[in-house]
């Protein structure tokens, strides 16, 4: 399958190398050319310099024929916006956005964008390791209400 990845940071680059090693066609986008060095010399996928909320850039990466899209930049909103463009306009079947802010991740999950929150996942895994509990499912780790205390009250609600 053809996968487009936005953001060539540690997660994006590792994902690109994993998928390429499995024989998938991969195109990875980043706005900084230097970041492509993370991919190493053997990387056989395509690298595209540009901003992922720009549709010309997405098309250059072959979004029209993509089977999957992963947004892994360090900007939550860039990931949200690009994931929505790709899902709504290009109808890519599998779209995932990495979102650090757990509440935002949950909000967009409700809106039909599959999200992964490394914040909840990472903290939850560490907690379970430290307290000697068995590993849980991804859904359990990402359930905001069970993990985070109630949000602060609305000061200006009245």
């Amino acid at each position, binding site marked *: 399958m053809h996968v487009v990845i936005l953001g060539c940071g540690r997660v994006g680059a590792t994902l690109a190398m994993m998928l390429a090693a499995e024989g998938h066609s991969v195109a990875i986008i980043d706005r900084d050319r230097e970041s492509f060095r993370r991919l190493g010399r053997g990387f056989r996928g395509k690298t595209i310099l540009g901003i992922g909320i720009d549709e010309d850039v997405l098309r250059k990466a072959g979004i029209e024929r993509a089977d999957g899209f992963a947004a892994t930049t360090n900007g939550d909103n860039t990931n949200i916006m690009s994931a929505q463009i790709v899902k709504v306009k290009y109808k890519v079947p599998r779209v995932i956005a990495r979102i650090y802010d757990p509440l935002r991740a949950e909000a967009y999950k409700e809106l039909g964008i599959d999200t992964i929150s490394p914040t909840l996942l990472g903290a939850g895994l560490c907690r379970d390791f430290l307290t000697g509990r068995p590993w849980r499912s991804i859904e359990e780790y990402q359930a905001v209400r069970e993990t985070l205390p109630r949000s602060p009250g609305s000061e*200006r609600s009245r």
Partner: protein
Amino acid sequence: MYVIVAGGGKVGYYLTKALHGAGQEVTIIEKARRRFDLLQEEFGDAALLGDACEVTTLDQAGAARADLVAAVTGDDEDNLVICQMAKRKFNVKRVIARINNPKNEVTFQLLGIDETVSSTKLIYSLIEQEVEVADVIPLTALRRGHLELVEVALPEDSPAVNRRVRDLALPHNCMLAIVVRGETAESVHGDTVLRRGDIVVAITPSASVQQFRAALLGRGAPTA
């Protein structure tokens, strides 16, 4: 009316000031501490420190009872998220997004944010009008820019002068609506004979403006 302004840059600052001056209740949200201090100095409790993209910040700002949220940060993706959160999490009736890249106007509409303002586009359209003086002047875009309402003054050398409208080689779906002669305006029909100095108001598909120009002015794109 209660308005939340997200983003305390220059646009947000002056917008808040104007709303304040008009006696409206406003909260301005800014995430950078230094900028916030400045806003607090000016607006007091109406300034709120926080990231407007976060549910908790919008909640603190009282988004649930806001009549309008204006997202005016310098980043289009932030403005999109702020508007979507306001609309979907807090049921804010009206949201307005500032956009910097005019191309994003269509994207925002696709993603459910209909009201956008792009200063790039506004300035561009002003320049465009300036460039096309004595040519085809765009009056307004219709149907999200697929059709244009335009105005053109017929010069002496116009190929349309002294001809009936039905005999002109107008583009498909193009309609001449009104002709202005001196102080009077008449509706145009197939037998109307155009004269030098006539101002014609027409509706044309945006894609056919060049063909329209050729039919009425006998030339292609305006020379700069």
